[in-house]
């Protein structure tokens, strides 16, 4: 079922690349339209899976990735439609397409662990996925900032210079994306802690719940992520770390998020595995 959105994402990705290279407004509008179609198809897929499982599909890692991709696309579309800046699409779409191939290759079944039948869990996971989607956007904005910065600093005003938005625009958008992401990350972690405590009382023998301690790689990764973004927020407001430093921080932060999301989920962690 995840194939159709993937194909549409790929087509939209090609259109964004076309728009980036040729800078024709018509190509840009086509790219946005295609991405809207892809998001619509993906919404349909998520909706079907929600009806099937009785909750938004994210207990299984593959499905969680699919939901993450969906949220990332929606956040990006929001950013694009509010700022009318399409240049970032060419950087976002590869992430979208790359991640969306995972649920296509490993569809996975949505587990119906009864531990998960809690509104806390729902808030926990959706907050975190939305936070990660914001961080993904922030990292792409940071990356484009660094590229643009380099072009202007080197005094070689070439291919990227004419296509990327201004440094100030990129920095402001990055700052907003990090702030929104940090807010939801904090909410997600707090809700997760509360929910684990409650679930432990209800099911004291669940090995999954017992593994949710700070030295579990997945939990540690989340806390580390929170630390990096908290520092980024703090540094921007008090030490004046904007621009290039903020861009670096959001790139590092998202690298940790990705590590935590994909390899740790599949190979290392003992917690957060519900199937």
């Amino acid at each position: 079922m995840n194939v159709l959105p993937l194909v549409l994402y790929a087509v939209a990705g090609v259109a964004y690349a076309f728009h980036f290279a040729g800078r024709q407004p018509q190509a840009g509008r086509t790219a946005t339209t295609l991405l809207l179609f892809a998001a619509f198809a993906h919404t349909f897929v998520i909706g079907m899976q929600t009806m099937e499982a009785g909750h938004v599909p994210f207990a299984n890692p593959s499905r969680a990735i699919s939901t993450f991709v969906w949220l990332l696309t929606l956040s990006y579309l929001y950013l694009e439609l509010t700022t009318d800046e399409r240049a970032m699409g060419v950087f976002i779409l590869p992430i979208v397409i790359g991640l969306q191939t995972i649920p296509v290759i490993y569809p996975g079944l949505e587990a119906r662990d009864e531990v998960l039948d809690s509104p806390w869990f729902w808030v926990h996971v959706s907050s975190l996925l939305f936070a990660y989607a914001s961080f993904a956007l922030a990292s792409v904005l940071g990356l484009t900032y660094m590229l643009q910065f380099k072009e202007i600093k080197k005094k070689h005003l070439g291919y990227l210079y004419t296509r990327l938005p201004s440094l100030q625009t990129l920095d402001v958008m990055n700052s907003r994306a990090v702030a929104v992401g940090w807010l939801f990350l904090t909410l997600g972690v707090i809700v997760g802690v509360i929910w684990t405590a409650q679930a432990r009382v209800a099911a004291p023998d669940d090995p999954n719940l017992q593994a949710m301690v700070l030295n579990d790689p997945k939990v540690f990764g989340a806390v580390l992520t929170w630390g990096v973004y908290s520092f980024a927020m703090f540094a921007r407001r008090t030490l004046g770390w904007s621009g290039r430093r903020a861009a670096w921080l959001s790139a590092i932060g998202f690298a940790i998020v990705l590590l935590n999301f994909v390899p740790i989920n599949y190979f290392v962690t003992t917690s957060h595995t519900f199937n």
Partner: protein
Amino acid sequence: MHLFLLGVSHRTAPLDLRERLDFSSRDLGAAVEALATRPSTAESVVLSTCNRSELYVASGEPARAREELVAFLSDYHKLPREAFLPHLFVFDDAGAARHLFRVAAGLDSLVVGEPQILGQVKDAFQTAAERHCTGPMLTRVFHWAFGVGKRVRTETALGEGAVSVSFAAVALARKIFGRLDGRRVLVVGAGEISALTAQHLRSQGVAEIVITSRTHAHAEALAAQVGGRAVPWDELRRTLGRADIVVTATGSQRPIVTRHDVEAVTRRRTDPLFIIDIAVPRDVDPEVGEIEQAFLYNIDDLQGIVQENLSRRGAEIARAEAIVDEELARFTAWQRSRGAIPTVVSLRQRFDAIRRAELERLDTKLSGLPPDARARVDEVTRLIVEKLLLEPTEQLKALPDEETQVAYTEAVNRLFRLREEEGRQAAPEQAEKAPADRHRD
């Protein structure tokens, strides 16, 4: 009706002649109205910029229009015609349309692709339209030209990239700061380029322009010119701390802004600092460029950008010319299709006359039918005639060139005896000309 164009431009005439033939400094509207009263000009538009003075008219007699336009130029500017005749260019029909399309696209400009010309063409047309000096011919060709200008601007990079040092500096500032409103500018040294740059920055809505110069009077003069504030020379260090954009252009033999000065400033600010050093020898120590937050551009860097942009524009010219060719082909095809209209109209009238005559002849036989059946007979015969004429009409409008059109029109006229039966139909072109004529009366 023919399109006719006569004028001078930077390609054909030296500056002093262009100045003497300029309309823009005097009342352009009056000039258009004066031109429209000539007997051979049904419609007229005067396009006058510092690089060109061009008269566009729609005329039934181009040869006579030429004479009248030359006389008009000579009278209006009080110049003997010998003074400008060798510098005139003259185009008619497709040639005139091509010239207008190229002008609107910025292809004929002194700086190829400069953005103002399209607006100037629009203004010229607007001025004429407001005085009812335009008609169907010029309205069509000018609107087509606006479309060509827009297409070239959106589909090619002909107008992209700054091609003057001061614009290049402003473009860079916009890439660094985004919108410039709320930004503070410090100008050190009052020279010509710094004045231009300050003016461009002012038009981008910067919050403040502070000017300082060793000679305070110069700073005050420039401040008055660009709407800034002059401060004494010894406050340079202090004002540097408040600026986002610094323009230096003094005649100093040694750098006046050192790495130490800038570091003291950047340590306290989070935003980048953009320094434009257009002085020769340089006013800003090149080491300043190594500070992470400082973007330092000197005159050579800016001129390099300008050169690069110019050569990039050059590469876009062929694409823009292709658009002009394509649009010109479409425009002339449209014009030819209009040429077929009188024939098409008389053909339709002829067929309809036959239809009515036959229905009248059958009137007694049809009188027995109920009214709705009679209405249906009328409807059916009308539809048959329309169906029969549909294909020939399309074919006549889509003929590839004028010669074929003349031959086909002649053939149709003869095959259906259009002229003998109906007499000459009033051509729509003449009918449409009426408003312009009326105005002239």
